[in-house]
């Protein structure tokens, strides 16, 4: 049944672009909404739909299903906000088509069982997102897309070189075959080199700290619905899920690799948070905060224990939800004020109450305040670090959590709290297309946060 997750979006692109364009133009957006709801349903309640032909070699464990769920939820809110923000019907149709390609790629990344297909699907998603970033053809967007393309091309080359060198000892590209081959000869220098460049390539795709150059530009220059998608799922699926999958299913955890992951994670957390403090552009601050939060995921993964990996995946889920919500808030503010500069805003909470409240809750979830969802995932990661003996990193994670709170409070104070400025007295709340998705996401944050202690035993990990 998993083949449908990849084939259906691809078939949809073909169906939408066959004749009857006039009719398809109108239904495309509803079709996309229905597809994302169907994906949520199929992930939560798997139905065994038999595929008579074309058996693809796919598999899904609990990690893949969590990521599939994120993808579907974020796609749903992206489409709702796109419907509101993209006025022209033709543009909207193109947007939906690109989203379908992106969806097929991301679902592919989460479901594949061999390393070359992983590369292929990563590249499919990346190509669709270059086009999405430069969707409105403005100068900054082209610049960001070009940076992303260059760094991604480097990452592709490194990833493929890694695959080729790994094939030299395994002779096959399947996860299982590579794992068996690595058990026989784990420490030859060629293999260490191959794994190192493969993992560096995934770091570039995920925008971790030494390789993050493209990420703030791409997030801030992209159109608002695309930022939601990019920050919520695209980079997380390509880089971070790819890394988790490779570590868990193929390479396994050993000493130096764990140390490298922990170090890169801690570096991203601290430097990302400090860089976020100094930003005055709403979306750039969120982008740096995204780097910092991804650091938590990597540091959780770096413990190598089941608890740490659970925390990492749970934080990935939470991050997708709260960061999408915050990017929707930034889109709402931008659509009303026409600027993203936080120094030109003040006291918007009185005029935009829904946006204000949803952004406060999302920020607090990101900073890890109980009982919101972000608290539990950060707690699990820190406990996992402490239990497995990496106490320095646990302390770093806790300290950085304070910086997280600091920059989010500074964001709140500058944008939503305080006295409203004279020239923004007659601002109204953003339309339903931006507030409804934010409310849905906030409801998920609160719901997961409160229900998590009861769900803990139900999640078999």
């Amino acid at each position, binding site marked *: 049944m998993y083949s449908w997750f990849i084939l259906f979006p691809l078939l949809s692109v073909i169906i939408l672009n066959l004749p009857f364009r006039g009719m398809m133009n109108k239904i495309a957006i509803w079709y996309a909404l229905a597809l994302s709801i169907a994906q949520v349903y199929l992930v939560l309640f798997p139905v065994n739909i038999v595929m008579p032909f074309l058996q693809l070699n796919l598999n899904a464990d609990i990690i893949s299903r969590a990521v599939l769920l994120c993808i579907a939820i974020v796609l749903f809110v992206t489409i709702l906000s796109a419907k509101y923000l993209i006025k022209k019907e033709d543009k909207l149709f193109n947007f939906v088509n690109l989203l379908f390609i992106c969806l097929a790629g991301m679902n592919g990344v989460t479901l594949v069982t061999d390393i*070359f297909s992983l590369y*292929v699907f990563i*590249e*499919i998603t*990346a*190509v669709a997102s*270059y*086009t999405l970033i*430069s969707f409105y*053809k*403005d*100068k*900054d967007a*082209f*610049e*960001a*897309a*070009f*940076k992303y*393309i*260059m760094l*991604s*091309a*480097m990452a*592709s*080359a490194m990833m*493929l*070189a890694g*695959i*080729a*060198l790994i*094939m*030299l*000892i395994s*002779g*096959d*590209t399947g996860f299982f075959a590579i794992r068996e081959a690595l058990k026989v000869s784990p420490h030859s220098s060629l293999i260490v080199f191959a794994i190192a460049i493969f993992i560096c390539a995934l770091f570039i795709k995920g925008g971790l700290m030494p390789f993050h*150059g*493209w990420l*703030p*530009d791409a997030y*801030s*220059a992209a159109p608002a619905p695309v930022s939601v998608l990019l920050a919520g799922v695209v980079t997380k699926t390509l880089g971070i899920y790819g890394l988790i999958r490779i570590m868990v299913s193929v390479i396994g955890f050993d000493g130096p690799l764990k140390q490298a992951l922990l170090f890169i994670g801690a570096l991203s957390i601290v430097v990302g948070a400090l860089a976020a403090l100094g930003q005055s552009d709403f979306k750039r601050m969120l982008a740096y905060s995204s780097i910092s939060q991804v650091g938590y995921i990597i540091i959780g993964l770096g413990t190598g224990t089941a608890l740490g990996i659970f925390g990492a995946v749970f934080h990935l889920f939470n991050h997708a939800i709260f960061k999408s919500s915050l990017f929707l808030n930034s889109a709402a503010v931008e659509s009303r004020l026409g600027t993203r500069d936080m120094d030109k805003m003040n006291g918007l909470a009185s005029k935009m109450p829904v946006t204000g409240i949803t952004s406060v809750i999302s920020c607090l979830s990101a900073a890890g305040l109980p009982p919101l969802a972000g608290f539990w995932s950060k707690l699990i990661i820190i406990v996992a670090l402490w239990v497995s003996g990496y106490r320095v990193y646990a302390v770093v994670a806790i300290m950085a959590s304070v910086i997280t709170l600091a920059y989010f409070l500074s964001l709140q104070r500058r944008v939503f709290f305080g006295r409203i400025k004279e020239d923004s007295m007659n601002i109204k709340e953003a339309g339903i297309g931006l507030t409804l998705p934010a409310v849905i996401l906030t409801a998920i944050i609160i719901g997961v946060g409160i229900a998590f202690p009861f769900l803990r035993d139900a999640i078999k990990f």
Partner: protein
Amino acid sequence: MSAESLQLFCTFGIFIFMLAAIGVYCMLATYNLIRALIGVELLLKAVTLLIVAVGYITKHNALTQAMVITFIVIEVVVMTVAIGVVLGIRSHTNSLDARDIRNLKG
């Protein structure tokens, strides 16, 4: 890996490494966007050669051929999009110089 195939691989490897180094140098040394893309192409061609060499040495020719063809298709798509982006940049700045696009600070 036998000694003979290791020697073969080293011969291939030196050439592949040189090609990749030329590609990276080309990307770093120029300010012209199209030339930077040519550098990327060279780098990716080096990787393609590496896959072919690995297939020849491990006797998995069929698998690596399939991989190389898939990769060539992907590469063409990526380059098409990249050239589209470069054309977009040119329509805004009327030049192909990377120094003209420094609005965003990374």
